[in-house]
Structures are given as structure tokens and as C-alpha cells.
């Protein structure tokens, strides 16, 4: 009887696992990155990142179209390896983090394109402005980790004009668009 109960429990557990699983970004182990790049004068790429953010996603290999993601970014954690520039980027000319300390992304759709690729759509709230964006997503991999957990990882890229989010400091004609490079590894809850 006891054996049966254990078996039943294990089956139930297995069944839930096979359904849409929830994943938490591995921010603790820093296996997730929110990065951006923008052209400097049109001559080179400048890279920066946000050091503090959190998020989770729901992903089911068998039913990928039901996937969803939520991310919250602490805009004060912007880091471009240069304190004076970071201060400027956090200030009123750009992100105005005193007024808008968080940026969020909430997905509204996930369209698999086959071969591990997909288009993730959702609402980005940045600098107090909410606009729909779409992110090109590629599944990198997923499976058991060596420490008894289960992980799933993706990379995504998107781009948008700073002006679309009310940031109109003039960096020059080649620097109107910022690209975001998002890499996440989620640990199954």
C-alpha cells in the first residue's frame, strides 16, 4: 500500500513536470544577462548591461506556443564600465532612474518558428512608456544540471528606437536604435 502511494505520487509529480513548467531566472548564479548595445558615433559598438533584474518564464517543450515570460529590471543597476557615463545614462537625459527605477517586460505571445527559434511578443515598459516589442528567441538548450535541478536556456535579441520610449537626447544619426541582447537560464521551480 505504501509502495503504491509512492508510485502514485511519483506519477503525479512526473505528470506535472511534463506539463508547462515554471522556471526562475538563475540570477543568483548569474546565468542570466540583460545587455544592450548602441553605436558610438556610428564607428563602434558600445556595450552595457543591467546588473540587477529578475524574472521567470513558463515553457513546455510539447506546447511551446503557451510559453510566457516576465522580467523586471532595476534601471539604477545600469553598468557600462564607466562611472561618468553610467551617471549620465541614469540621469534625466536618458533613463531618469530617479523617476523610473524599474523597467518591465510582460509577454503577450510566443510564436514558434521551428528549429528552436521563436518570436516572443510583449509589452516593454521603459522610461515610463509602455510599447509592444518583439524579441527573436533561440532555444540554446535544456536538461538536468549536475546538482539535481533542471534548467532551460534561451537567447533573445530585439531592437527599438530610444525616441519610441521618450528618450530623445541626441547621440547622432547612427545611434538612434539600441539593441538588447537577453540571455537567460531558468531553473525549474
Amino acid at each position, binding site marked *: 500500500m505504501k509502495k503504491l502511494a509512492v508510485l502514485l505520487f511519483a506519477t503525479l509529480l512526473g505528470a506535472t513536470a511534463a506539463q508547462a513548467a515554471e522556471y526562475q531566472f538563475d540570477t543568483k548564479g548569474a546565468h542570466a544577462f540583460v545587455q544592450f548595445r548602441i553605436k558610438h558615433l556610428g564607428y563602434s559598438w558600445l556595450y552595457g548591461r543591467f546588473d540587477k533584474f529578475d524574472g521567470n518564464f513558463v515553457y513546455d517543450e510539447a506546447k511551446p506556443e503557451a510559453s510566457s515570460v516576465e522580467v523586471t529590471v532595476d534601471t539604477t543597476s545600469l553598468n557600462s564600465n*564607466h*562611472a561618468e557615463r553610467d551617471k549620465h545614462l541614469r540621469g534625466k537625459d536618458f533613463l531618469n532612474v530617479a523617476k523610473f527605477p524599474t523597467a518591465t517586460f510582460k509577454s503577450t505571445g510566443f510564436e514558434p518558428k521551428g528549429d528552436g527559434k521563436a518570436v516572443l511578443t510583449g509589452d516593454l515598459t521603459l522610461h515610463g512608456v509602455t510599447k509592444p516589442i518583439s524579441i527573436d528567441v533561440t532555444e540554446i538548450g535544456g536538461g538536468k544540471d549536475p546538482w539535481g535541478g533542471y534548467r532551460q536556456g534561451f537567447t533573445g535579441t530585439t531592437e527599438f528606437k530610444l525616441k519610441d520610449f521618450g528618450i530623445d537626447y541626441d547621440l547622432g544619426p547612427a545611434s538612434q536604435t539600441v539593441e538588447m541582447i537577453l540571455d537567460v537560464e531558468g531553473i525549474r521551480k
Partner: protein
Amino acid sequence: MQTRNSDTHYGWVAVAFHWMMAPAIIGMFALGWWMRGLSYYDPWYRQGPDIHKSVGILLLVLLVARLLWRWANTSPKPEPAPRWQQQAAAAAHWVLYGLLLAISVTGYLISTADGRAIEVFNWFSVPASLQGFENQEDIAGLVHKWLAWSLMGLVVLHGLAAFKHHFINRDATLRKILGIGARNNA
């Protein structure tokens, strides 16, 4: 004109310290305020902050030298005035020194927050020391700005008081710091 201060006169060193630093300090405030509004393609976008940082370090050096000179020296006795005015004037002078020191330090903490040194006119560089506070450049920047505004408020008061002594009390306060001695027709 003597080098050291006396009970009635400022020596030329003290006078020189005052008049080298006063215009530089007011100029630094103007430059700091103006350069924050520059566009990215303005030729001054890089030059403005470079000059601001270089002059700031030099002013800090002057301030330390000035304080050492003050401590190694006597100060002229204040002109006759109600006791509270003499005390307020003395307090204002020390607050001016304190603000200058704090503004210099917070400015330094902005530019060195990531470990970068401050280049002083391609002459020498001052390395970073205190760094790694979370959002150090933002906090130091905010304090730097409000202390600078406080300083300017006090500078206006300091100047008005000097004119009041000169034109209303008709005493030698302003003449002493100009190094032209006491009035003989007062």
C-alpha cells in the same frame, strides 16, 4: 606688503589665496552648471568636464595649502561689530572652507567611482581611492550639486556682508582682504 598676516592686515599670501580661489570657484560653478546641458556633439562636451576636474583638483590643493597657512599664522582682528555678527562671520568662513572641501571630495568620488584616475591637464593624475559603494557616482553627484548651490548661496551672503562693511559701516573689512590697508580718513 608683508608676507604674513598681522592683527590689522592680511599678508600678501592670504590675499593671493583669496583672490586666486574666489574667481576660480565661481567660474567652476558656472562651468559645472553649463557643461551638464551640452549636447553630445558640442566641442566642449569633453573639454568642459576635463577642465572642471583639473581645476577642481588644483583648487583642492590650494585649499589645503590655504588652511595650513591659516593655521600657521595669525588672523587680523575683526572690525568692531556686534558680537553675533563677528561670530556669524567666523562661522560663515569655516562653513565656506568645509563646503569647498566637501565639494572637492564628492567631485573626486564621481569621477573615480569606477577606479579611473583624474587627469589634471595632462600634467599629473590623481588615482582613485574610495570606490565600490553602490551607485557611488550618483550619490556623490547629487551631494556635489546641492553643496555647490549651498556654497553659492553663502558666497552671495559673504559678498553682500563685505559690501555692507565697506559702504554702510565704512570700516576696513573689504580693504584688508584687497590688501590696501585701513582707511585713514574714516
